[in-house]
């Protein structure tokens, strides 16, 4: 029997059961009818209420019949059962419920609701939600979580939740991939538990997993994951709270996919009351900070001939490289290559964004609603980038009776993103020769409006280089996303407050389209090439169906005992199809669609399509028992089946257990009056991870141009990657919870780690294989401190602080795994890393830079005592590089490296430890000051401490190795014997002047003032005057200042992508992170 049909059958059975029981009840009671009359009035001014509802309900609060009151507030209703109850309600008034008890006349006074402003129903105890369905008081939670409320992030200019999360929660690391609108983010919870494959956490929205990943076999032409930022496009204003599940006991409940942590997002829902309308608006402006100073055209054209000359003494051939000829007799080149262009300035502008959101919420006894519509528009700081998004959401709750409830949530997102055709545009602009003109000059020296896009010049041709402005303005990369997520839930209570069941089904329809066009204007290449007027169109359609069936059992136990148990059965079925077209050479720059006549002939241009499917099922049993509110224990086990595994390894089981001891509840602690809460928590759990690609357990064949050939090998040995987590936590609350400290210490061990492209000998015909390769540990601690040091009538000052540390260590690894990062330390620009079992990641090695050989005498090799080394024939020996393999003799002006072993030869024996790129501590802190509940000033700082970063920008802008533009630092380069400087000579494509050395390694510890917000809530007096329920105004600035010794542009480099134990962090940013100012206004009616 198929699992899905099994579930649907259960579903139908239950519906039938419910309907059946309902009808029988009605059938029995349809006999005797009594008429009841009465009047409904307002309690305060005693006026009649017109249109109030009078409803007969049965014992389960199910609606039986109802009438409305007339102009005078009078009503008459025929009720079917005198044992039933009767309710009187009107919008804006408290509902009155009375038993009928044979009474025939009711005169009712309804009391107006005193406070209708509350957006969220405030319950006595906040519940934590691990998303599965169990409702546990936050104070009884046995697991490690942290929660962020909507208020905490609403002031930020974030266009999506992941941006808002950055730095707010301990143990959660959010990294940007780029500052352009629509760029995606990477979220890491407690470090990365997997070597590669998916490292993003599972996101659960309103109890259902939310797909945030593009299937790996989705081919979107030129698009990549960056383009799929709309995957997490829930408008931030729709969010009620975000909870991060961190320890394995909590994530184990989500089984597969939960190894990277779980993010639980709950959206706002309706509440009883008059319709409350809230309007949020934000405007922001962003500026790209000034870049590091680069050479002008004049300085550049002095450098390049010198650099080429230094290679082998032959001058730059200006007859073929007319860019440097400066020959007035060749006016075209003379005018076009004698400029001082600022390419960066040309492609940079101010960025703006506006974000509008209107929501309405309200409801009555039976139905509640929350609906919102949002519009977000952003233009980026790079010319040609922008984002437009429309979101709509409606959350409906309908109570049929106290036993049956329906929920319907529908979310719709429409995103249009404009990216640059080529994502390297900013990099190319930095490297672009500044003596080249942006717009073309004609042969008389007149500036024309045409972009100057030569087919090639000394810097090369497309795609190594191009005219960045032309590419930004006329290249097209247009992405369109449509996502609709309807979610239906039926809740049925078998035994009131004892046994409840919920049935969920969620459809997720996610369609994307990417259109790109590369015009000849931008590349300048001849029209025969495929990089000219190249048009692509890619469609991807995804459909995901998820079901969840929960049974929650909560028996009534004796005083002091509490018990809750959950059985949950879940299934997921994802299908995706994609179509891609890439053609070239449409007849004109304006024919931008591949449907225009164009070429598709060789392998560079494609018509392709793909289809893929992925299924999983899971069953979970979880239970929590509490005794005397002091001893709490939670156990769970989850079984998962997944279509990505072969029959041998298809199922995984993930147990978990956790407990909490509330020491402060013990009688012997009663004397410590100041203590509100002191608990110890401990947890243990397993969670799993599945491989990234479908069908990998088949040996597949792929059709090629001519025939068919094997495309991948059968992976019979692929097993679940399992994370085993242990967590010890403690919660402390003192002085009426004005000081709260949560601390966690954890050890996560990932067993059978996946490695996607494990290197194997290429004589197998393959170069990589996916395998379970070893064991890795993520150990660390997290401390969260929330304090309110001052709280008076007018003033509240709060201070929050979090700190965390995570260490990645490999415990064992396949012998196939490379033992070094494979770089040749004797090549420029790279550092060596080694695989060290048992040592934390992130250390790198290289040479020590000692300056520049100032003259020929300085290049003579010297031994440890400083005396010159004499060769066998009595000659003086020059310092050599990598003898005998390379045997380069150092020349005056070359970079000087420390000859650690004093053998006159700089080689791998001279490399030393240079640093470690993993921070010792990271975290954030933020003070906030509130005056009279009206004015609130808050700031947020983030920091990283104790790590060394490689300043890649410095390396690339001072290496003088190729025709890329360089920074003005190279003006101090060595030029003549005797020059004393730290900047080596320019040397085209040869020499060893920029080997991986401590010249580029810097301490990158920093504290960054990430945001400052000033918020003003309008006084009730003012609100009354304008009939507002609430109104506030705020200003936020982001990235105001960074305190650091680091001389590069951005010390906050997080390692995106694979978690490679052999990689090291490099900062290649050319500008500091963008600064922005945001104005926002919230009005409630």
């Amino acid at each position, binding site marked *: *029997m*198929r699992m899905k049909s*099994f579930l649907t059958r259960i579903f139908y059975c239950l519906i039938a059961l419910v309907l059946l029981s309902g009808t029988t009840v009605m059938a029995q009671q349809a006999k005797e009818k009594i008429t009841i009359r009465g009047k409904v009035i307002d309690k305060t001014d005693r006026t009649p209420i017109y249109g109030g509802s009078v409803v007969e309900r049965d014992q389960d609060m199910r609606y039986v019949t109802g009438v409305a009151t007339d102009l005078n507030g009078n009503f008459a209703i025929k009720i079917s059962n005198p044992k039933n109850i009767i309710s009187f309600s009107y919008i804006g008034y408290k509902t009155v419920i009375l038993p009928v008890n044979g009474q025939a006349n009711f005169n009712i006074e309804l009391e107006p609701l005193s406070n209708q402003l509350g957006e969220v129903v405030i319950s006595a105890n906040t519940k934590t939600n691990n998303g599965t369905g169990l409702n546990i008081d936050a104070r009884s939670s046995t697991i490690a979580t942290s929660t962020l409320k909507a208020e905490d992030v609403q002031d930020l200019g974030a266009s999506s939740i992941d941006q808002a999360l950055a730095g707010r929660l301990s143990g959660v690391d959010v990294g940007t991939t780029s500052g352009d609108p629509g760029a995606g983010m990477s979220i890491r919870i407690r470090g990365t538990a997997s070597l590669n494959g998916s490292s993003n956490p599972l996101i659960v929205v309103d109890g259902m997993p939310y797909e945030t990943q593009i299937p790996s076999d989705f081919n979107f032409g030129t698009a990549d994951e960056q383009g799929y930022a709309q995957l997490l496009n829930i408008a931030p204003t729709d969010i009620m709270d975000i909870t991060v599940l961190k320890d394995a006991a909590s994530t184990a409940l989500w089984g597969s996919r939960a190894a990277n942590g779980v993010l639980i997002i709950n959206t706002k829902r309706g509440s009883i009351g008059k319709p409350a309308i809230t309007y949020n608006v934000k405007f922001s402006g962003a500026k790209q900070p000034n870049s590091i100073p680069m050479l002008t055209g004049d300085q550049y054209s002095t450098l390049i001939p010198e650099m080429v000359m230094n290679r082998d003494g032959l001058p730059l051939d200006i007859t073929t490289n007319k860019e440097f000829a400066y020959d007035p007799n060749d006016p075209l080149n003379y005018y076009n290559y004698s400029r001082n262009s600022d390419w960066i300035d040309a492609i940079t502008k101010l960025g703006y964004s506006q974000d509008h959101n209107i929501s309405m919420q309200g409801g009555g006894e039976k139905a509640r609603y929350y609906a919102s519509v949002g519009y977000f528009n952003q233009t980026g700081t790079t010319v040609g980038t922008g984002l437009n998004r429309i979101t709509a959401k409606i959350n409906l709750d309908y109570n049929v009776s106290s036993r049956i409830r329906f929920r319907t949530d529908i979310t719709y997102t429409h995103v249009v993103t404009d990216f640059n055709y080529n994502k390297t545009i900013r990099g190319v602009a930095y490297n672009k020769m500044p003596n080249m003109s942006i717009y073309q000059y004609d042969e008389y020296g007149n500036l024309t409006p045409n972009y100057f896009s030569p*087919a*090639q010049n000394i810097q*090369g*041709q497309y795609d190594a280089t191009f005219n960045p402005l032309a590419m930004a303005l006329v290249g097209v990369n247009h992405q369109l996303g449509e996502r609709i997520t309807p979610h239906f839930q039926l809740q049925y209570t078998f035994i009131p407050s004892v046994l409840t069941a919920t049935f969920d089904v969620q459809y997720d329809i996610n369609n994307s389209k990417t259109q790109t066009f590369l015009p000849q204007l931008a590349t300048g290449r*001849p029209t025969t*090439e*495929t990089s000219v007027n190249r048009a692509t169109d890619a469609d991807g359609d995804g459909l995901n169906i998820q079901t969840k069936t929960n049974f929650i059992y909560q028996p009534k136990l004796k005083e002091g005992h509490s018990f809750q148990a959950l059985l949950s059965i879940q299934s997921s079925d994802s299908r995706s199809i994609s179509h891609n077209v890439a053609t070239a050479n449409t007849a004109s720059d304006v024919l931008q669609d591949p449907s225009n006549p164009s*070429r598709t*002939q*060789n*392998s560079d241009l494609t018509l392709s399509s*793909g*289809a*893929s499917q*992925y*299924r999983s099922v899971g*069953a979970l049993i979880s239970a929590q028992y509490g005794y005397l509110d002091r001893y709490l224990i939670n156990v769970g*086990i989850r*079984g998962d*089946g997944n*279509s990505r595994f072969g029959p041998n390894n*298809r*199922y995984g089981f993930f147990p978990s257990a956790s407990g909490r001891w509330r020491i402060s509840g013990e009688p012997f602690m009663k004397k410590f009056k100041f203590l509100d809460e002191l608990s110890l928590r401990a947890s243990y759990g397993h969670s799993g991870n599945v491989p990234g690609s479908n*069908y990998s357990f*088949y*040996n*597949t*064949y*792929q*059709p*090629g*141009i*001519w*025939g*068919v*050939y*094997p*495309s991948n*090998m*059968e*992976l*019979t*040995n692929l097993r679940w990657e399992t994370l085993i987590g242990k967590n010890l936590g403690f919660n402390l609350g003192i002085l009426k919870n004005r000081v709260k400290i949560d601390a966690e210490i954890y050890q996560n061990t990932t067993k059978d780690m996946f490695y996607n492209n494990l*290197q*194997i*000998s*290429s*004589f*197998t*015909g393959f170069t990589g294989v996916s*395998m379970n390769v070893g064991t890795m540990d993520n150990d660390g601690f997290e401390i969260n401190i929330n304090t309110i040091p001052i709280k008076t009538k007018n003033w509240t000052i709060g201070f929050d602080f979090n700190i965390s540390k995570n260490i990645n260590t490999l415990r064992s690894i396949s*012998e196939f795994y*490379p*033992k070094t990062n*494979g770089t040749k330390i004797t090549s420029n620009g790279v550092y060596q890393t080694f695989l060290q079992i048992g040592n934390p990641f992130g250390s790198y090695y290289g040479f020590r830079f000692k300056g520049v050989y100032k003259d020929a005498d300085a290049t003579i090799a010297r031994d440890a005592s400083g005396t010159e080394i004499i060769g066998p024939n009595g000659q003086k020996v020059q310092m050599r590089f990598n003898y005998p*393999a390379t*045997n380069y003799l150092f020349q005056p002006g070359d970079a000087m490296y420390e000859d650690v072993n004093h053998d006159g030869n700089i080689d791998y024996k001279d490399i030393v430890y240079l640093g470690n790129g993993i921070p010792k501590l990271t975290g954030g802190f933020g003070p906030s000051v509130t005056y009279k509940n009206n004015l609130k000033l808050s700031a947020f700082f983030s920091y990283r401490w104790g790590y060394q970063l490689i300043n890649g920008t410095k390396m690339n802008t001072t290496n003088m190795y190729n025709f890329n533009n360089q920074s003005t630092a190279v003006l101090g380069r060595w030029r003549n014997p005797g020059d004393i400087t730290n900047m080596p000579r320019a040397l085209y494509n040869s020499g060893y002047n920029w080997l991986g050395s401590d010249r580029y390694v810097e301490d990158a510890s920093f504290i960054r003032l990430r945001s400052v917000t000033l918020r003003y809530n309008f006084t009730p007096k003012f609100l009354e005057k304008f009939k507002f329920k609430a109104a506030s105004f705020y200003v936020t600035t982001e990235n105001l200042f960074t305190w650091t010794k680091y001389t590069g542009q951005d010390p906050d480099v997080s390692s995106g992508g694979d978690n490679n134990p052999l990689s090291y962090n490099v900062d290649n940013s050319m500008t500091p992170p963008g600064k922005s100012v945001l104005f926002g206004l919230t009005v409630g009616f």
Partner: protein
Amino acid sequence: MIQKIKYLILLSFAVMLTTSCNKWLELKPQDGIIRQDFWKTKEDVNAAVLGCYASLFNTTSSLFIWGEIRGDMLGTTLKTTSEQLDIINGNILSSNSITKWNPIYQTINYCNTVIDFAPLALTTDQTFKQADLNAALAQVRALRAYMYFELLRTFGEVPLKLKSTSSDADLVQLAKNTKKEVYDQIVADLTFAEANAPTTYGDRIGDKGKMTRYAINSLQADVYLWGEDYANTITACNKVIASNQFGLISGKNPDGSVNTQWFNTVFYNGNSNESIFEFQYSSSVLNPFYNMFISSSKQFAGSAIVMDQVYTVDLLDDQNKDIRGDLSSIKAGDLTIWKFAGADNVKNLRTSTTSYAHWFVYRYSDILLMKAEALAWTQKGQDALDLVNVIRTRANALPGTLMNPDPTSAVDVTDYIMAERQREFAFEGKRWFDILRNAKRNNYAHLDYLLSIETDIAPSDKQTFIINKYKDVRSHYLPINIYEIQTDKNLIQNPFYQ
């Protein structure tokens, strides 16, 4: 007790999951073919054999670089990569990506896959007979032999992988086999292939682009010549000659005028009457040469000696040209490698979309010159010189390149043959192997031949360094790429690079 009940519930769930959901979780790719559904018909086998041929397209740039970069025919440009320069300057390191053998072994794996699974189709397809199977196996074993022959000549000792990698259970750590073992395997594959391969596939592209019996004979001749087995070389050559399927395209029309279509026929169009085996590039599959030879950022040009010393110029009559020289192999003006770059014998270059010159593996002239070389070493020097003259006459070789070696001196005759081969097969990936074969013959009796060539081309400041390296004959084989050494514990680096 509660625990027990839980386990029971769990167990029943496990049973339910495994039985009822297993089917639901069993998904097959919708847009690919899995092995279990393949190998059912002769069409499947045929498609897989064609896949092996198609994979040859990925090997071409390796074949070119391995065969030419250490020879004396290539010149550098500003865009020659540092790795290419390293090899030219004798700075050969195992980290150099030029030493990667991946595409070669990929083709070998495709061939092994056919060898392992094609027999399955015999049971499911009644129209697929043993002879059809043998013909398929003959082709893939010939291709495998060809690939191992390239590896043998480039690396010396390599691991012999004779089973396909179809599953992660098939992954092995092989050690290197000796040169003898590799050579014997090549000979064995070719012997089987020769016995079972068809002589024709019924169309011209098939006959020139697939392993016919004659292509296999040509490969045999080459292999035996490398193995200094001259009798078998002559036998193999004679089989091709006796087939009467091939002939030389003359550089002269019957009336004595220059055949202006010679370049077009032999190189631009390819598949000429003198062609035996060529990689069939076409407008849908482009060769890798556009970026290497044609575009403005080309990596290679011909060396300065090609016109001056290899073809020479007739100073009295500039119309009197070796037909293989200017605007055939090379463009004298800017040293462009015209054989793959030229769109005609006038001045036009191929463009990025028309860069589909074939890769010429064997032409009939090769058969004649291989036979000549074998004859020279079996005391038939005059017969050898006669064959060389056939080649020279048809190509209008210039008197400047004429040598009159003593027919009884095998060494002198061979040096002459080598010079002719250099003219005939310029840039066809044969020069270095010719030099090496000639130098290593009879236990490196003629090492000075290789050294003198390398002395001529070495940059002046690196001459001593390079010659000293090449004096150690172990340096004539490339190192095994560091990647392979790291991924296979049993693989030992070639001795010179340890």
